[in-house]
């Protein structure tokens, strides 16, 4: 690499056949440029990008000792790479090169030949002024760890883990609940095909457990993420289970014997009870119970009990377990933290929490589930079968006071419920909807089918659900009041049961995960993809991908497709094995930085960290994308993007206005 102090600049003006030359007087430009300071040679040639053209540059570098090169030809978007390579071939750093675009910006867009020549002169002179300030830059290659971290063990996380592990990579799957499975594990049937969720889900859960390439961390959370693409260092916190996973055989005796029995089951949406030592559901993976420390008599109340420990034959109970921290070297991260159903309590008009017979859709899923609290019989709290059921769409969705967006799955699962209700109970089903959204393979067909099954559809938002009845014969029932926008009449329908089709919102704690990973979230809290159309699974942070509902509401087919796609992105990265860092990235001069953090606030990619000891900002070269937001924010010019330095840009401005 030539790094002599005295700049010797070679300038090459391309005729581009007939594209530049007749319009621009290239010889005149060369003559003019030859006179500029530091210009050793200025030549014009028919096709600079041809081999003889490139050889001309290479020879001049070698023979005349040029240490900087300017080519005036077409757009740098076209041939910058070509000429940089030529410069590199001659043994010069490829960044000692600048291009002036005198074709797209001059000869092709200017009518007058003299004007074109003048414009070309000043642009080439500006390129000469700029290249004077160029500095040699390097790219680095970093190896990629052959491992994937998946956060969230719903259907998205499970699929992403399986696909990545099947490709031969090591996967760590972190799930914060005692079991993997996510929401889908709570369903009985899935639209539109009505296949049994458990039948497709349970084997997949077992696959995940048994796959040699997957290490499962349930009842665990991601504690810390450091590093960058290909080289993340992740700390996982394993919360104490108080049950030794290695000793437990999953016999379940402890759960039968535990005397603390009246704890509302989270898995059954509070519709049944569980014990203090529990697995959330019988098919849980892993089938190892956890002790709920708040309710346990020993751990939570300091009482004598220990019944579980007494009965456990393998002595797996360990009341002294402490959180354990595991550090992982990770190449790529897939975020699959999913969603949570909106809690409709604050939407008072629906009476949720006030009227026992108003259910959320997730509660209904459990009520309808063969392994649920009623063993799959749809029963009211009094044990009777409902005769008429109202299903209310868009609860909390498409509502300017709530979630503005459409939650995408509620219409479909509402109709799934309608079908199941008709089939199981013969009850009359009334659906109150704004409009039906069924854009998916076999979805419209499912809508038609449900209509044919006699489900009544009322188009209109529900104004209120009340326990006041008009007809004394309906005493004890609920009345749904809505305005039908089709008939423009108010309808009052007495029903036995109401199901609220609540919308989806980001899972609790998404904000923290976002902060740990440096991911931004949109106005509704979903993680932002890199590009809505062209990079829907990537994120602004290189090496971190999204799958499933954490990116936005979607159904299972879309979730699974995304999970496979995200795994594909991760696999592509790992298979290549190296990442090349960009040369045009930010650098921060620690001697100039005053530690104001303006750059940190400005960086979309969380690529700058603060060194508390020195009180200066430090760029993580692997995360930086070179956008320059930090440079523009830094008053000290401590932060600046290489190849776009103040001197380079202002040198260009100065020359253009000379």
């Amino acid at each position: 690499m030539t790094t002599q102090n005295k700049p010797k600049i070679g300038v090459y003006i391309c005729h581009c056949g007939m594209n530049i030359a007749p319009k621009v007087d290239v010889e005149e430009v060369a003559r003019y440029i030859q006179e500029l300071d530091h210009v050793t040679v200025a030549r014009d040639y028919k096709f600079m990008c041809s081999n003889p053209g490139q050889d001309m540059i290479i020879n001049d570098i070698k023979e005349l000792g040029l240490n900087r090169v300017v080519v005036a030809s077409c757009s740098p978007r076209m041939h910058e790479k070509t000429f940089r390579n030529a410069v590199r071939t001659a043994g010069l750093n490829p960044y000692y090169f600048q291009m002036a675009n005198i074709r797209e910006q001059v000869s092709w867009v200017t009518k007058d030949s003299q004007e074109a020549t003048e414009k070309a002169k000043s642009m080439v002179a500006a390129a000469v002024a700029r290249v004077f300030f160029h500095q040699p830059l390097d790219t680095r290659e970093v190896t990629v760890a052959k491992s994937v971290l998946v956060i969230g063990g719903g259907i998205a996380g499970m699929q992403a883990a399986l696909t990545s592990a099947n490709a031969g990579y090591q996967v760590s799957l972190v799930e914060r609940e005692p079991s993997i499975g996510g929401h889908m594990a709570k369903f009985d049937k899935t639209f539109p095909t009505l296949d049994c969720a458990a039948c497709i889900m349970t084997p997949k859960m077992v696959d995940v457990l048994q796959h040699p390439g997957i290490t499962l961390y349930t009842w665990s959370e991601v504690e810390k993420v450091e590093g960058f693409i290909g080289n993340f260092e992740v700390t996982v916190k394993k919360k104490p289970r108080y049950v030794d996973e290695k000793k437990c055989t999953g016999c379940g005796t402890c759960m039968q014997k535990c005397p603390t029995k009246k704890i509302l089951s989270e898995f059954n949406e509070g519709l049944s009870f569980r014990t203090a030592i529990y697995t959330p559901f019988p098919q849980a993976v892993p089938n190892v119970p956890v002790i709920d420390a708040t309710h346990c008599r020993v751990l939570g109340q300091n009482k004598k009990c220990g019944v579980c420990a007494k009965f456990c034959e393998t002595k797996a109970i360990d009341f002294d377990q402490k959180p354990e921290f595991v550090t992982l070297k990770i190449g790529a991260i897939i975020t699959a933290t999913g969603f949570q159903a909106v809690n409709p309590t604050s939407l008072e008009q629906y009476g949720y929490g006030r009227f026992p017979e108003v259910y959320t859709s997730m509660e209904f899923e459990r009520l309808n589930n063969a392994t649920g609290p009623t063993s799959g019989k749809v029963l009211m709290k009094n044990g009777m079968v409902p005769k008429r059921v109202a299903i209310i769409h868009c609860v909390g969705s498409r509502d300017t006071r709530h979630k503005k967006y459409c939650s995408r799955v509620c219409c479909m699962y509402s109709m799934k419920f309608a079908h199941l209700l008709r089939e199981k109970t013969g009850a009359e089903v009334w659906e109150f909807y704004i409009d039906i959204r069924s854009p998916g393979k076999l979805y419209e067909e499912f809508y038609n089918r449900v209509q044919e099954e006699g489900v009544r559809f009322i188009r209109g938002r529900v104004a209120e659900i009340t326990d006041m009845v008009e007809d004394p014969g309906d005493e004890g029932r609920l009345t749904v009041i809505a305005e039908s926008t089709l008939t423009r009449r108010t309808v009052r329908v007495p029903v036995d049961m109401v199901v609220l089709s609540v919308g989806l919102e980001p899972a609790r704690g998404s904000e923290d995960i976002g902060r740990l990973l440096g991911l931004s979230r949109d106005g509704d809290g979903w993680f932002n993809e890199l590009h809505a159309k062209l990079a829907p699974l990537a994120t602004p942070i290189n090496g971190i991908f999204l799958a499933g509902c954490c990116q936005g509401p979607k159904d299972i087919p879309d979730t699974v497709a995304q999970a496979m796609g995200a795994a594909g992105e991760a696999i592509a990265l790992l298979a290549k094995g190296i990442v090349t860092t960009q040369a045009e990235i930010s650098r921060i001069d620690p001697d100039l930085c005053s530690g104001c953090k303006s750059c940190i606030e400005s960086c979309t990619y969380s690529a700058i960290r603060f060194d508390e000891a020195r009180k200066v900002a430090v760029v993580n070269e692997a995360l930086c994308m070179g956008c320059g937001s930090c440079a523009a924010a830094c008053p000290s010019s401590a932060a600046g993007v290489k190849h776009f330095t103040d001197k380079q840009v202002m040198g260009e401005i100065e020359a253009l206005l000379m």
Partner: protein
Amino acid sequence: MVKSMSDDYQPKIIALVCNWCTYTAADLAGTSRLCYPSNIRMIRMMCTGMIDPKYILKAFLDGADGVFIGGCHPGDCHYINGNLKFKKRMAGIEAIISQFGFEEDRLRLRWIGASEGPEFQHNMTDFIQTIQNMGPSPAKGLMVL
């Protein structure tokens, strides 16, 4: 070239444009042979978000009659939101230079997408015309930089 009736004033205009959208649109205008006056001098930036106020001040004090900033449409910025960051910063720069007698329209920000060759041509023609009508920059005769 736009001709002024009264004198031979040739405006000098600096355009700072982002690589991904407006620069690409300029290339497209070129390949489509969409002509515009030759007074514009373009500088390729990676994103409008990297434009330091210094560059704009420098251009004006060095004698630019107008400064054009071109970036991606909101939502399309290659770096997510560099354009919005610049837009915010621009409000302050405008408030400053207007106090020193620079007419509001001498600094112009427009979003021109990569496929908008004709828009690029139209914007250049229009800006040059505006600056032409406005006359030379008040900083033109300065003896200093």
